[in-house]
């Protein structure tokens, strides 16, 4: 397996062509609320059956990479996350976008690419070792990890932690509707068949972010975005400054992202939240978070792209998918007779190296295609509100519908959206609610199954080294603000 062979494979015209096509596709998918990278992968898989394996898998890799970046485009321009992986930074990104849409997206793009490249390099050089480490995670470790993530929901809620807690409670309760995952017990459905599967996450997310913003905009339909601002702005204006200022943030976020991505069952969305929360905890300016912190956007956007690469680590080494995208891509790999496992690296050495090269090409090419996408998409700010709002509403409806082909989900979107509007007015942080919908059920499931396994012995939660480490991390996250306050008091 020489690098030369791999390069020759990766640089075939049909492969590069597939990557380019997939990147354009990815821009669309990511930018449309409701159409996620996961869904697009599922749509691509049947095509890949009839393609050369490298070209087929490369399409999935390139599409997912770009989609995760382009999910930030509607977040910056419209306050609607295009994919769940953009939810963490949506509010900050939008606040920045009110002033400098193009250059915010420019920083976002470069950081996404850097995150993706870091993830790819880690995948290339230490996949087996990292997979070996993550294979030690049982439900006990996941319990601590998800609980830690849930405490981030309180960390990220700006001024009033108590309303952050309330947001978590509301999100958690929303997520507990439907068939309960441990015992299969049906709860809080009021006899409705549609509610059996609970509130679908993507319609809920679209509703919580998009509807309040649409309502706010339509209540003053003739106000416009100042186009004057748009004219003097270049996409890469802020990049150099941002890279210098946030270099530690970028490195840390890329590492967090890759690691979370490599954990089976936790994907780009959780990676972005975690990285954002950590960045806020250690930031010098935590008060800017939630009001347009470029640091927060950088942290989240770097991590979510790193996670996309990281997710391939357990997928290739053990055949256990790292996220929902690789879960589907696994099927495409198998359809080409590429059975994951350590043998894959030996038997198809140069092909696997060629995949890694594609990762790097996809991330580099993304800067070019992302640039075009930013140039084009910022034009929607020129569209008057009374035209934009109904069009966006239709896209939200089809997005919510398309997830499960269910009109019920469209109602879920609308009802939760109106609810979200009032919650916003009462100062309950929407991001905390959304994060609790993702993590709440995981905390519950891992807590109860761990106790079933240990015959109700609570010692199980601190019986293994990684679990102890994560427990300390969680408790540290809780007490850190108190320590800080003390230190500040002592110094003054």
């Amino acid at each position, binding site marked *: 397996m020489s690098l030369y062979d791999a390069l020759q494979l990766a640089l075939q015209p049909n492969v590069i062509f597939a990557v380019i096509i997939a990147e354009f596709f990815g821009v669309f998918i990511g930018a449309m609320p409701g159409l996620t990278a996961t*869904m697009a992968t599922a749509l691509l898989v049947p095509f890949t059956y009839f393609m050369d394996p490298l070209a087929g898998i490369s399409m999935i890799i390139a599409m997912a990479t770009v989609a995760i970046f382009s999910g930030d485009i509607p977040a910056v321009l419209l306050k609607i996350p295009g994919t769940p992986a953009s939810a963490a930074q949506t509010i900050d990104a939008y606040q920045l976008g009110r002033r400098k849409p193009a250059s915010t997206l420019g920083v976002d793009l470069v950081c996404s690419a850097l995150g993706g490249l870091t993830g790819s390099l880690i995948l290339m050089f230490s996949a087996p070792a990292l997979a070996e480490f993550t294979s*030690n*995670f049982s439900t006990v470790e996941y319990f601590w990890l998800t609980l830690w993530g849930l405490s981030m929901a309180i960390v990220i809620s700006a001024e009033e932690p108590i309303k952050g807690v309330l947001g978590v409670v509301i999100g958690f309760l929303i997520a507990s509707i*439907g*068939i309960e995952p441990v015992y299969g017990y049906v709860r809080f459905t009021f006899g409705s068949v549609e509610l*059996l599967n609970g509130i679908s996450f993507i319609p809920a997310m679209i509703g919580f972010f998009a509807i309040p913003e649409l309502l706010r905009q339509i209540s003053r339909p003739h106000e416009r975005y100042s186009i004057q601002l748009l004219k003097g702005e270049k996409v890469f204006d802020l990049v150099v400054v941002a890279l210098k200022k946030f270099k530690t943030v970028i490195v840390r976020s890329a590492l967090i992202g890759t690691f979370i991505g490599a954990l089976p069952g936790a994907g780009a969305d959780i990676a972005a939240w975690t990285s954002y929360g950590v960045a806020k905890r250690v930031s010098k300016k935590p008060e800017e978070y939630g009001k347009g912190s470029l640091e927060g956007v950088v942290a989240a956007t770097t991590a979510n792209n790193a996670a996309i690469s990281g997710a391939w680590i357990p997928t290739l080494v053990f055949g256990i998918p790292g996220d929902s995208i690789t*879960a589907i891509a696994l099927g495409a790999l*198998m359809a080409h007779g590429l059975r994951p496992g350590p043998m894959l690296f030996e038997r198809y050495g140069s092909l696997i190296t060629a995949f890694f090269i594609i990762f790097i090409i996809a991330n580099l090419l993304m800067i070019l295609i992302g640039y075009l996408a930013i140039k084009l998409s910022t034009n929607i700010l020129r569209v008057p509100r009374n035209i934009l709002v109904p069009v966006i509403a239709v896209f939200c409806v089809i997005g919510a519908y398309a997830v499960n082909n269910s009109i019920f989900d469209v109602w879920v979107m609308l009802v939760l959206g109106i609810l979200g509007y009032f919650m916003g007015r009462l100062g309950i942080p929407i991001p905390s609610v959304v994060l609790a919908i993702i993590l709440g059920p995981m905390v519950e499931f891992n807590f109860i*199954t761990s106790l079933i*396994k240990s015959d109700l012995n609570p010692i199980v939660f601190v019986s293994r080294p990684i679990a102890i480490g994560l427990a300390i991390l969680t408790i540290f996250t809780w007490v850190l603000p108190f320590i800080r306050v003390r230190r500040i008091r002592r110094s003054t």
Partner: protein
Amino acid sequence: MFTSGISKTTSIIIAILIVAVVVGGLYYYSTVTAPPKFPTKPITFIVSWAAGGGTDRTARMIAALLENMTGWKTVVENRVGGGGTIGHLAMATAPPDGHTIGVITFELSTFVWMGLANVSYKDFKPILLYNKDAAAIIVRADAPWKDAIELTNYIKANPGKLKASGTAKGGVWDIARIGWLKTAGVDPNALPWVPSTGAAPCLQDLIAGGVDICTCSLPEAGPLIEAGKVKALAVMDDKRNPAFPNVPTLKELGINWSFGTWRGLAVPKGTPDDIVKILHDALKKVIDSPQWKEFMDKNGFGMAYLPPDEFAKFLENDFKTVGELLKAAGYVQ
């Protein structure tokens, strides 16, 4: 703003009227000229599981091949939710004209027993069975048991000490566990079930040391077997899996039990028999094609075939067996 109210309102009404007339005309045209033969519109495959999962992948392959071979338009629709109930309910209540084919899966045999939804094989007219995957007994590679008999005896001697996992409570791999232990004369409660959200998270938990046994299918554990992380002690099938020739069947070891998941195609009850026959003949060609065989082989899905009448008997049997086992495990109230 409402500056020129009346003229604006009038023009909206005119615009809507125009649209309505055009639509009405097209409606009329489309109903009048509809050809009487089958199929008259695209054939929809309803899948109760998420896009990208095993059932979805097989359904999309069947739909694509059917479109290639017959020229009929096909659509695959995922109706996900409620542990499969939402999709199966949608299939059962679809118009019985053959244009909606349900991809029914093993879970159909459990809904009534688990009290999830009142839908069973009785609501369907089967077309054919196309896939069966047997359960296997997977343990960590460094586990002390040499074969399934040793393991079974250990469970009998140390009830409650080991834990097994693989799917949700009452899921296919859970029922496989109950049947295996019951046939071997062991109380199923001697090996408590830890619910999991699927085979992949369960295998992760197995290698992390969270549970001791996983009763999922062999292809699902394939990469980890190859990686030397886990080993398969036995497969609950009538004969060995050709891809895993070293794994004995439970029957070889003297435990007369075979069980697994299956996937098949069916239409709502009340569909005319001649349409079922047209569909069966077309779909039989699909699953006899070399492309289908290659696809199933590479994915590690087990190929199977049962014609409508035998599939109907199979469904009835499966429903009864599952009911008895769930009762034995105390899941049915």
